[in-house]
């Protein structure tokens, strides 16, 4: 019994990582209806940025993450302003094709710059630290920090959305683009700021991705699938739903792995299919549209 509780706790904590992958995706889709197929690769790009900054300056990855954040903010702003804004319109296909191409460019760029070797962000003793919960139950400090960061990120994004003038402009642009322009809102700039914020979240996700497991330039797309599933399970446009979606996949994976280690990935996808069959609009769909 106790080890099943342990398994579920592990799954919930793993869900924090998937929620971090997905939060940026959910934000972007919610505001500009853009499906960013390069999101996973941008997270991997951020992980390599952290790695490079840590080794250049001889600093630990925590500090390197803080340095990488403004850089990724600028990457997101520039990417949206110079490239993705030109692809947005009535047709959904151009942004899909462009971000698909971007995904390949980022992977190959990283292969050129960093080779295909597996890397890891080394955080020292904290990687193996754990908290004893009594009995035989212990939870790792890093997974706990990951989930805590996911909750903090989503809390901050919600505060931004519902308590600030910029957040009002985000929601207004998402509701009615034409009227938002009548309010003097420059929607291209709003989109660029949104993508920049999504890249800040991606950088946080990159830290936990790189510290929790090995990574190499090609792992982005596989991570993107979990992120998409989390967004869809949660309901499009709902950030708390995205967290719930991440947790559903995380728990399904750890429970599946507990039954049979080969079932880990499959169980996550089956949970996704089950939710889509039973609740096609996700667990927490927005009231409107």
């Amino acid at each position: 019994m106790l080890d099943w509780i342990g398994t579920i706790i592990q799954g919930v904590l793993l869900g924090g990582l998937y929620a971090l992958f997905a939060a940026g995706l959910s934000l972007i889709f919610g505001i500009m209806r853009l499906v960013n197929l390069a999101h996973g690769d941008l997270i991997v790009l951020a992980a390599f940025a952290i790695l490079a900054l840590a080794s250049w300056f001889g600093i630990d990855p925590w500090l390197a993450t803080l340095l990488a954040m403004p850089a990724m903010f600028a990457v997101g702003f520039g990417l949206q302003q110079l490239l993705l804004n030109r692809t947005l319109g009535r047709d959904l296909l151009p942004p899909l094709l462009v971000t698909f191409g971007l995904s390949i460019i980022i992977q190959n760029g990283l292969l050129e710059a960093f080779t295909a070797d597996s890397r890891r962000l080394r955080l020292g003793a904290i990687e193996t630290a754990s908290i004893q919960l009594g009995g035989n139950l212990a939870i790792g400090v890093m997974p706990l920090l990951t989930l805590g960061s996911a909750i903090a990120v989503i809390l901050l994004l919600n505060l931004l959305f519902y308590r600030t003038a910029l957040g009002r402009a985000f929601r207004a642009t998402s509701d009615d683009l034409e009227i938002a322009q009548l309010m003097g809102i420059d929607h291209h700039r709003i989109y660029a700021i949104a993508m920049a914020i999504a890249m800040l979240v991606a950088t946080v996700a990159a830290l936990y991705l790189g510290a929790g497991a090995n990574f190499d330039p090609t792992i982005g797309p596989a991570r993107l699938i979990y992120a998409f599933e989390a967004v869809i399970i949660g309901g499009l446009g709902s950030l708390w739903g995205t967290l719930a979606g991440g947790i559903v996949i995380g728990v399904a994976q750890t429970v599946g792995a507990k039954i049979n280690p080969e079932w880990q990935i499959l169980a996550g996808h089956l949970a996704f299919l089950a939710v889509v069959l039973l609740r096609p609009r996700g667990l927490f769909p927005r009231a409107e549209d």
Partner: protein
Amino acid sequence: MSAALLETTGLDARYGDFQALYGIDSAVASGETVAIIGANGAGKSSYLKAIAGLIRTEPDSVRFEGRPIGGLGAANILKLGIALVPEGRRLFSSLTVEENLQIGSYARDVAGPWSLDAIYALFPALQRRRAAPSHTLSGGEQQMAAIGRALMSNPRLLLCDEISLGLAPIVIRNLYEVIPRIKQSGTSIVLVEQDLAQALKVADRVYCFQEGRVSLSGRPAELTREQIHLAYFGH
């Protein structure tokens, strides 16, 4: 009459292959209230959209305070001081009433007679519903919020597209009672209106549109019913 605040010269407007306006010449003086009347499809709404920048036009065909603004785009035109109350209200559905008002001054936050408090004084009903999601409002309340939202940018020129559309006569009368108070604040107004009686009552001057052209213009007192009827329907 003082120099024109807004002037259109040979204003054309198109939606793709369809031409909605043919060479509209018009002027709105500072402080003036102008009504645009005419049958459905006469080009009244297109005229407002062209001025507000929602339809691309030749730069020189729309001048605001003497400067060409055609083709600047809606966001830039709002910042110059032209606000549009769109047809059908179109409040932001995921924003509360107060947030809808606040977004009105997001890009043009200038000193002037209009603020949240002033809007609530103008429309007390909105103050009671300030925290409500905008889609829960009645049609009349939604129209108040849409007018308030446009006023929040303290515009020099307020464009109102069919504010009586789909509302009960008593609600329309209440809405039109605030027009003189908006006028007193110094804002110039262009109203597009199907309700001829209301339009003629509040306007200093009217333009009648017919099939994308101006068919009649003048002061309401100087126009006869027959002239208006002819300008409306062309027969």
